[in-house]
């Protein structure tokens, strides 16, 4: 673990690095084609990176989620997605179903063990 001031500096650097894209978009607006190949590639990279992040948090989480069963986390994802699609893409139905399943599964495990 780093000390607090380092964490704040890192946070500010990340804020600036995120702003870069927003600011560049303002400055280059009208002068650059948003459909260029370079840009397509960067947005694919962003998508895959976030996919990697979520996979990591779900499969090999640190902290609190690390104390739960992998199978429960994976099934909760499946339940959330199926409920979301059945409810015609309603995010709340998906989230509530997934979380409810996850808590229920955790409870069943405490009773059985």
């Amino acid at each position, binding site marked *: 673990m780093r000390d607090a001031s380092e964490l704040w500096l890192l946070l500010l650097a990340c804020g600036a690095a995120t702003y870069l894209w927003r600011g560049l978009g303002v400055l280059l607006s009208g002068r650059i084609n948003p459909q260029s190949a370079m840009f397509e590639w960067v947005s694919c990279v962003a998508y895959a990176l976030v996919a990697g992040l979520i996979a990591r948090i779900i499969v090999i989480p640190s902290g609190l989620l690390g104390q739960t069963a992998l199978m429960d986390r994976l099934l909760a994802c499946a339940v959330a997605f199926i409920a979301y699609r059945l409810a015609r893409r309603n*995010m709340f139905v998906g989230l509530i179903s997934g979380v409810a399943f996850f808590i229920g599964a955790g409870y069943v495990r405490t009773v059985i063990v």
Partner: protein
Amino acid sequence: MIPQHRRAFGIGAREALGVPAAVLGAGFLGYGSLAADAGYSIWMTLAATFAIWALPGQLVLMEMQAGDAAVAATVLAVSLSAARFFPMTLTLMPVMRDGGSKRPIWQFLLAAQLVSMTTWAVAMRRFNDPDLKDLESRWHYFLGFSAVCIGSAALFAMIGQLLLVALPPLARYGLALLTPLYFFVTLVGEAQSRSAFTALVCGAATALALHTVAPGWSLLGAGFIGGTAAFLLQRKHARRV
């Protein structure tokens, strides 16, 4: 503010207050709980929300910080996760500025910090409507809409942070899973094309495979390998059509 502008600000704020603020709120409720679990102070959670204002980037930062990843790798990964903002502001600015806005550019540079997936999508759709024809109304609508979105995110992040400590263990686990679930559903739901699906699968597989070898670099690896694979597939497909 002249009454017409105050009205546009109010319309923006009201329209954000329904589903947009609630969906964002759910994502940030989970974020707050993960932040508490990662040892963030409430100030750090709020600062990350305001300074980055992009949930994926905030999660990348938290995840890589927890794994003690290299500073350069962390900043690069957070930045890349936000690359979608570039085409977003690129396409938003013409509809907010062109046609003789008297506002100086620095105001637009400040407003760019407010851009998020939600605010962008709604602005692009709403700015075609007759009640938001003039640029000043659009400006105030955008500020009103964004203010409620950021306010809701900050509020729910704080609630999530406080709730995590107060809840019984099982409910705590449920709260901590909220944001990962939110992203899982969004990502899988969005992966309509074959290339998006490739990015999803390759990104996830690379992140997990690299985790054992080089955890600090696994997210960047996932982005570069999964993203490039998806990009090449997309190109190949586009050429054939």
